[in-house]
């Protein structure tokens, strides 16, 4: 089974890093969509099916919290798992995003291994699951 992933971050660099980790983690990805903020993310969702969303919080126009809120209120999107990748890692903020329906939370700065582990958890495939043989070892991964 392969996935469509949507990466939402106003930083091109961070989107590139996340996409690289995904590709090197051995996930079978059909399409990896990108959006610079929540508004662009909703535009992607209107046209394409997405299996997982990886989103920042602090973005212009529609931020990550507003995006989570809109997703939760839409019957078509509310079941899509969302992983938040953000600098805002306070306990209060974590509680807020989980209450809004996020399935995973990663604090920046992060190691590639952390992102991979959370994605495996959210997608429901363990490290010894069907992707185990495909995944590349990121521990010594040199960006």
């Amino acid at each position: 089974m392969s996935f469509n992933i949507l990466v939402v971050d106003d930083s091109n660099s961070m989107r590139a890093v996340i996409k690289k980790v995904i590709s090197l983690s051995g996930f079978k990805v059909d399409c990896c969509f990108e959006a610079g903020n929540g508004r662009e993310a909703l535009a992607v969702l209107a046209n394409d099916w997405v299996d997982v969303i990886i989103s920042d919080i602090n973005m212009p126009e529609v931020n990550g919290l507003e995006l989570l809120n809109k997703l939760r209120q839409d019957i078509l999107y509310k079941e899509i798992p969302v992983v938040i990748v953000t600098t805002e890692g306070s306990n209060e903020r974590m509680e807020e995003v989980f209450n809004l329906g996020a399935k995973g939370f990663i604090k920046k700065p992060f190691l590639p291994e952390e992102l991979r582990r959370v994605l495996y958890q959210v997608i429901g495939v363990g490290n010894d699951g069907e992707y185990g043989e495909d995944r590349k070892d990121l521990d010594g991964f040199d960006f």
Partner: protein
Amino acid sequence: MTVNTEKIEKILMDSTFEVFEKMFYISLEALNADHKVCDIAAIIGLDGSARGEGDIAVTINFDGSVRGEGQISLSGGMTEMMAQNMLSLDACEITEKDIEDCSKEAANMIWGNFLRKFNADEAFNLSIPIFGRNPGTIRYQGPDLQVFRLNFVSSGEVLKVIMTMAYTPL
């Protein structure tokens, strides 16, 4: 409010180290008051007068139970090193947009990390980082204001971290 200045400085320093090691694969060396090497002082403009061609600055604001402004100033070589390492690019492939993006992301992560370590129970508001070619001045002023300045080098390139912090909410 009783404030432990040394502790805040240590948190800011640790946050900066962590961001540069994890996201940019750059090992920084902190310079402190014991460093009297004239050429290093000249490079980083410890007196505020020296500023190299291509220096850039990124400014970010935060507020909550404390408020303030953070700024990083980077030498051109430091920004290129960051973009190269983060994006796995050759020097000739790096664009101005890459440099702006990586620099803004660095400021965002440093102060996000700092505020999380400062008070993990509070969700501070962090502004969108502002990128500029000429390091500017810090806007907040007042009697309750504290200023923190940290200087780092790596492979001859320079990073300056400046933060003002006030202990009263807006």
